[in-house]
């Protein structure tokens, strides 16, 4: 009997261990995985290293070093992974309201639990993530936020559920609680980023961009890597073969694409119609979870809003979305575009953006990686051309977008000759006025 009482006490202790510990004032999260250098700064205390099993209080700032990582478990069982070279502030994490996390730099991957403790209104955000340029209201479960402090760009990728995103003017020094954040993410300028989609907010975008599908292969890789895997620096990697863009310049990519209907016929012939029908149905069910819509690359004729081409890559380092250009190949299976080889790709392990020939700067420019060592590059003259600078608001080549017509006589710019002609005409009129006015009295006198 005594043994049973002890077992019961132990079970109850284990069951309520989190709550018992949470009873310690202000502690809201615990480090459950730590790799490399992870530091914390709590209110009234100096910066200190933190280890696995340590608790973090509300108001604490957590920072990771190079090739470092921290997985944090919150009292509501939400998990957040802070990537390398990142810093976040647990601004608020109350019991009955949504928490507020500020991402100051780097990468944050979060899995928010559905039944968030005791929040009454399930339609409102369960958690708010804030950067200098964006506010996000989490209504789903799994997503990733990247923020680059140099270009002040925030990118959001949703792996499951829905996250609302709105831009914040970095110069406005936005401060607000849950109510103000909820209003912001529910405002007309906010967007809803769903499973498989990406949106970006920065001073250059002028608002949160209309969500588009991220490259499906990169999406899957990023989803698998929760920030724990790091890219191996290969200083002497064998140069990869340069490929041509599969779509010749000028050819419409949708016309040149293949919907693989013939593949289906070949499969049916070999495997049997029943199996293939099942495969198609199963695929359709799986795809129905991902939002449909066109592949982007359009300008709304009424509002002027630009939807970038879908299927591009995310560069987590600079928090920029690399939109596929107009000459990209189109994939009817995923309804996305695949950028030509010179736009790079992604690491198969980490999902990080990589480009053998060009480096993407925080300002959105592609700079050649070829160094001048006295020898020309091996493929001199045949090397890829640098992609144009990123401009999230541009939609060159989209349907209905205005382009400079070289035959249009109404070219933008000032015509100095026209200006002088106007000045001359005004001067002549002024002279005439002087002459005529000086005669007025004489006319009156003679009448």
């Amino acid at each position: 009997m005594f043994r049973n009482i002890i077992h019961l006490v132990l079970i109850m202790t284990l069951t309520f261990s989190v709550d018992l510990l949470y009873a310690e004032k202000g502690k809201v999260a615990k480090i459950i995985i730590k790799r490399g250098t992870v530091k914390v700064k709590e209110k009234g205390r100096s910066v200190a290293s933190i280890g696995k099993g340590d608790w973090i209080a509300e108001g604490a700032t957590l920072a990771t070093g190079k090739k470092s990582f921290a997985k944090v478990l919150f009292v509501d069982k939400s998990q957040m992974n802070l990537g390398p070279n990142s810093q976040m502030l647990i601004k608020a994490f109350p019991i009955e309201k949504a928490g507020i996390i500020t991402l100051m730099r780097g990468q944050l991957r979060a899995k928010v639990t559905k039944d968030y403790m005791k929040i009454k209104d399930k339609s409102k955000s369960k958690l708010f993530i804030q950067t200098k340029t964006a506010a996000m209201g989490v209504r789903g479960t799994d997503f990733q936020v990247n923020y680059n402090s140099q270009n002040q760009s925030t990118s959001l990728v949703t792996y499951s559920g829905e996250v609302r995103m709105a831009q914040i003017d970095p110069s406005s020094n936005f401060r607000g609680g849950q109510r103000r954040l909820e209003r912001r993410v529910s405002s007309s300028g906010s967007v809803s980023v769903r499973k498989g989609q990406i949106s970006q907010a920065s001073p250059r975008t002028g608002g949160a961009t209309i969500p588009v599908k991220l490259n499906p292969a990169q999406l899957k890789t990023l989803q698998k890597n929760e920030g724990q895997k790091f890219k191996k620096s290969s200083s002497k990697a064998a140069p990869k073969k340069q490929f041509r863009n599969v779509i010749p310049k000028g050819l419409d990519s949708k016309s040149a694409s293949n919907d693989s209907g013939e593949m289906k016929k070949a499969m049916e012939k070999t495997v049997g119609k029943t199996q293939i029908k099942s495969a198609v149905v199963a695929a359709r069910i799986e795809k129905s979870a991902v939002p449909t819509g066109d592949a982007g690359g359009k300008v709304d004729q009424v509002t002027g809003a630009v939807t970038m081409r879908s299927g591009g890559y995310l560069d987590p380092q600079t928090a920029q979305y690399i939109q596929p250009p107009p000459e990209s190949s189109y994939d009817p299976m995923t309804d996305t575009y695949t950028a030509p080889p010179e736009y790079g790709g992604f690491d198969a392990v980490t999902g990080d953006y990589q480009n053998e020939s060009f480096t993407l700067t925080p300002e959105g420019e592609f700079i050649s990686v070829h160094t001048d060592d006295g020898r020309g590059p091996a493929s001199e003259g045949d090397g890829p051309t640098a992609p144009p600078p990123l401009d999230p608001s541009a939609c060159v080549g989209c349907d209905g977008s205005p382009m400079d017509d070289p035959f249009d006589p109404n070219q933008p710019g000032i015509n100095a000759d026209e200006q002088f002609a106007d000045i001359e005409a005004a001067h002549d009129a002024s002279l005439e006025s002087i002459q005529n006015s000086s005669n007025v009295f004489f006319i009156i006198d003679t009448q």
Partner: protein
Amino acid sequence: MRQGKAFLILIFCCLTLQAAFAMGPLARAFKSFNTGDYVATIKLLKNFNGSKKSEKAVKWYLSAISQARLQKFDQAVDSFARANRYKQEARDFFYEYGQALYAANSLEEARRNFLKSVGKKFKKATSLYYVAHISQILEQHKTAKRYYRQILKEEKRDKNVLQIASFQLAEVLLSMAETTKKPAAKVKKYVLPQMRKAIVIQPEHRLVVEIKNRILEVQRQYGLDPNQMINGKTLPERRWNLSFKEVISYDTNITQSTDLITAQATQKDSYIYTSSLRGKYTLNPNNRFIANPEVQLLHVKHSDQDNATVFENDAYQIIPALNNSLEHSAFGKPASFLFGLEYNYTARDRGQKHEIIKYATSITQYIGEKFRYFSGGNTGVKFKLKTYRAFQKTQDNNTFSMVLDQVISLKSGNLLLFFISADFINNIGLSRESTNSFLFRVDYIIPEFLKGYMLNIAHGFTLIDTRQQQATRGYERQFNPSLKLTKNISRKFSVAYGHDYTRVTSKDKTGHEYSKNVTSLELKYKF
């Protein structure tokens, strides 16, 4: 017994259903392929070793396409080759294989596969395009020309392919022309017309801008640009120009009455509605001479129709002109010798009877020169002779003017305009009214003051030598600061807000000294 039978039937149905929904490895791989998960597709197929030749063919074919979608074209080419060894017979096989080979730079082999795709009638036009395009890359121009022509002959529906094929045919013809003795003649006869045909296929497509730019480039390269003058100056492609302007202004002192308190009652203000329509045409019979006939129609109406001193200024003007230039070079840069003629017919409500009748006519002749001596911008010099004849003979005058203007483009992208005019007005009707006037004006233009807004800040100073009236009027001075803010709503439509202040000082304070403010809103549309 019956229960046993029912049980057996039930089991049989379950097994059948299970079989129906059970997928083998190839079907599972196809399901992944359909969701766009090409990595998973390749992984599933890697572990599959089919026993039948058809299974192996399909396995490698599906692997190849998945690798191609991931842009791993070298691996895709290998897989396609294996599928080909197993005699993969899908209609699109050679098309996909051709694309992978093209991306992997195996052009000759790619072309062979696209030709097979043409034979199988799969995406025939696009396959033919690849064949022609590859021939063009390999500089086999005759072959390329043959296949582009085949597309234009056979393809009826896909306008995208038709347009690009038409344009690329022109490029091939250009490459062929460059090897002949007189390329310019061939370019004019074959290449440029072919490029223009491409524009007509889909005039609104984004490719058209590229084609037009290419036409301009080729024309300039071969001296075939009808819009390029001998000195390099280019004229717009469209020769006519038509614009309409409506200006609504508010003038605080239309009567130009003195500011003296005793006479301020004579100051009249009013809104003024000025409408003007201007049309111009550019003619260049050769690459040296340009003639610009133009006509302007102007109508002025004042809102105050009660005060005679105001509404007597209601007017209309008809101004035909012929402005010409002879193009040449000066100081190593394009220059123009200018000469022209302008006729002005003005009608006004001079009788103060709400009736606009003939007021005056004038003829202005000028010669001048525009050249670029300073790196900052063009310099203009002009000599004008104006013959003004009014209904009132005492207003008749001849004016000789010398005008000097200079443009300076600043590094910031802003512009400085200097304008100097010396006008010698000889009143032949009443000689004591003759005056000399010297204007000095500076304009500072900020093209992008705010996004989409242009700002023009100007100040003019005019010194008027009253000559025979020196004793009563002395030297009169006119100060005229102004600003104008223009917003380009579109390439054709602009809106501008302007404010003009004028202050004239004179020895004769009661008769000739005044000030006024004119605020205006201008709407301009260019057709």
